[in-house]
């Protein structure tokens, strides 16, 4: 296999892993009890 192709597969592997990580992070963040947005208060949601 050509070196450039191997490099492409390595890059692809990293991109796919990042995408999977991003989705998992988004899911955990969405369902976390703590509000992560700006101006969040215990009773007043986030602005």
């Amino acid at each position, binding site marked *: 296999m050509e070196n450039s192709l191997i490099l492409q597969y390595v890059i692809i592997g990293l991109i796919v892993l990042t995408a*999977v990580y991003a989705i998992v992070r*988004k*899911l955990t963040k969405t369902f976390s009890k703590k509000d992560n947005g700006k101006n969040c208060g215990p*009773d*007043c*949601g986030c602005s």
Partner: protein
Amino acid sequence: MQEKKQKQILLIGNPNVGKSTMFNVLCNRKQKTGNYAGVTVASLSGKYIYKNEEVEVIDLPGSYSIYPTSEDEAIFSRYLIQEQESYSGVVYIADAINMRRSLLLFQQIQDLGIPAIMVVNQIDEAEKRGIKIDISKLAEILNIPVFETNAKNNIGIETVREAVFNNDFKISQTNSFEIPTEQKALVYKISSNTSEKNLYKIWTLLAADTYLGKIENIHEIITQEDSKCSVPKRLQIHETVRRYQSIDKITSQITEKKPQLKELLTEKLDKVLVHKIWGYVVFLLILLLIFQSVFFLAEYPMTWIEDFFTWLSEFSGERLPEGPINSLVSSGIIPGIGGIMVFAPQIGILLYFLYLLEDSGYMARVVFLMDRMLRPFGLNGKSIVPLVSGTACAIPAIMSTRNIENVKERLITILVTPFMTCSARLPIYSIIIGLIIPDQSFYGIKYRAIALMIMYLIGFLMALFSSFILKSFIKTKIKSFLVMDLPTYKMPLFGYDFKLVLGKVWEFISGAGKVIFTVSIILWALSYFGPPQHKNEILATESSLDHSYLGRIGRTMEPAIAPLGYDWKMGIGILTSFAAREVFVGTLSTLYSLDDKAPEGKLIEKMRLDIKPNGEKVFSFATGVSILLFYAFAMQCISTIAVVYRETRSLKWTMLQTVSMTALAYFSALIIYQILK
């Protein structure tokens, strides 16, 4: 260099007096405002700098009194009383049209010993009604600085900034409410046993149903015997009656009302717009006009966006070196993002019309019309506001249920609001309606616009039906009722709303774009790679779509979705759109782009020409209607699920809602397909 000073102020007033408009003008922000009560249900903060002083402005939800009756009012009261040390003063916004009501909350704030200035807003509207307010007399009576403003037209704002800079906030030296004799002894007892010396603050503690202030050892001081003679609601009524007696004296001194000879435009319009028959006819016509515009006005920009992404995909396919990266970019990411971006103009047009209607004051009439119609379904009163705002997005709509004081009614509203057709359903409805409904008109009205309106009505009727069913399970003894002002009609701020829509469309593009970007990478990887075909292979690369991992997953789930008329590509679309509904279209765009067998052209053409192995159309009329019904009822939005969980604080109700909506979607789609096929 001079050091920058810092200060915090609160914006306070009754609902719909223009607090959010004032907040936007002061802080140069684009916070959503509306010409009806309850737009702000959470505190918002912004900043501005004036003469090297940084001022943090907190916009609290509107309230009529210091005593909370709902969660959004509780936010207001708690912040006002508990955080008194953190702010310099209160900018109290009074409504020139209704000074009597504005003064009730203002007196309470003064009696709490909170430093304040008063801003009388909507003077121009009051003058139109023949109401003249003597500002200097008002300032003299209240013994605080009072200013006139017209926040909408940026008049008087600099004076307010100057007053805030000069710390013109004043604390009242006298109390306008005298504590009744029956409670005086108890109030003095608490005062002598605690560090709290403000007698009215102690009174609010007795008169509020919930604990508002911070007084240590309060439960040890108030014995059971003491609380016997203090029924909170009675104390509140007593206070309100007494206050209005003194307020009436003030308003008679400051207000001059000329007899109104001419009928106001608002009154003329309301004769038709809230009429028991014509009101509904006009509302349906307005809806039809909006949906007609969604198809008609968006046609050209949608074509431009689609052409741009097709060009970009071809361009990157030609320029990038051969290999997986070329395939990922030109057949995975670009078609995926393009597939969803193409609907941005339609969403923008829909939201623009909704904002114009809100701004003009018409939305308040819609709430009034709905209230009358929906009472038999158990969705009376305050539930209507979240339902109406759910047509834009379910998330803020669910948050706005905070102003429903009855917990059970609030729960029912939260559970049924996701049935309302939000803007994320629009891309799916638009593409499927485009596939199954011909582009023809009936007396100038597009059949597609009528079909879109029917979809909105189906969502609305399902919300009604579900609340009717839920009403019999979640029984509520106390009914909440809606008390709202019908605001005067105002000319909408076309330019401001346009800017607001641009912001919302960007929010949609960046929000949906991020999701579809990551989803399309994973979809591409699953379609590019497949199980090994030969012994010495770890993975098969450049597999045909049918033999890829994605194809395998799709084929595995096909038996479950085939009775609904869907092929495996649609199944994958449904799976990915659990993240957000609009991802369905992005997914199909990626999948058709990756499929070598798919015909060339735009996504809708590829979908139209796609055929099953038996020669039947993949997107037949029956399949199209089945998809439409599925998405009308399915809870395909992770963010909404999270908000429901956050607002109900109940995993049981969140799960029940998600599972039942999905089951309803599945079986409705199944039945309709089996009937129509």
